[in-house]
């Protein structure tokens, strides 16, 4: 079963949809509680998030730092713009690789769906070029590693 869909929309958007077998309250909490975020927002196997700052209020700060424990690391900063408890989060974020990428404006909604929750995350980038660059650089760490592995096999 494919639970997650991801598609580009127009020139500037990326839309991610995922269903969870839990209440909007639980899913919302897992997105706004630093202790919980550290357990799941990790990306490729082997990466951890030793620093997780998440202040879920308008103007509140976001800072996530990831490491692979072997010298690889990068971080993300952002600010919350709007929060509707249990149903909607609007924030901006940028990756530091280490130069900051252009702001990604992210709107996440949690809607009750039967006995679960339908989450829709809509990212808006400044333009088509930035969106393409994000798709390329966002997976930089995972990709670099896999290409290096591949090359060593060839």
């Amino acid at each position, binding site marked *: 079963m494919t*639970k*997650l869909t*991801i598609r*580009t929309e127009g020139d500037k958007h*990326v839309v*991610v949809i*995922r269903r*969870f*077998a*839990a209440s909007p309250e*639980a*899913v919302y*909490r*897992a997105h706004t509680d630093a202790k*919980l975020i550290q*357990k*799941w*927002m*990790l*990306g*490729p*196997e082997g990466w951890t998030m030793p620093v997780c700052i998440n202040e879920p209020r308008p103007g509140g700060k976001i800072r996530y730092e990831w490491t692979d424990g072997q010298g690889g690391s990068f971080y993300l900063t952002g600010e919350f713009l709007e929060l509707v408890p249990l149903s909607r989060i609007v924030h901006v974020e940028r990756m530091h690789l280490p130069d900051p990428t252009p702001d990604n404006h992210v709107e996440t909604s949690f809607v009750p769906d039967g006995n679960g929750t339908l989450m829709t995350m809509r990212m808006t980038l400044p*333009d*088509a*070029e930035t969106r*393409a*660059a994000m*798709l*390329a*650089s*966002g*997976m*930089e760490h*995972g*990709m*670099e590693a896999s*290409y*290096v592995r*591949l*090359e060593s096999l*060839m």
Partner: protein
Amino acid sequence: MMNLDTAFSALADPTRRAILARLATGEATVMELAAPFDMTQPAVSRHLKVLEGAGLIARRVEGAKRPCRLAPAGIAEIDRWLEMLRQALAANYDRLDQVIAAMTTNENKRTP
């Protein structure tokens, strides 16, 4: 015919991936491609030669210019990046399912 070895080494460079990403938005000249990078046009041209050799981009002649665009293999590569983002997010949300399951279990334990 695309040579995998050539394609992988062409893609192992972050600048060349950024060039592909830029070309995903449309055709561009060497000058336009060099602009966002702290690089000379000859340096960009060398990267373009590698990408062209790997079958990831195609070039046409327009007077003195040779604008570049994505070749089918390059387009497939950009689609793959979207697929990799999908996989990274899917892994995150599968973990989130477990985190939520643990939250629910703990809450049930607290309820007498």
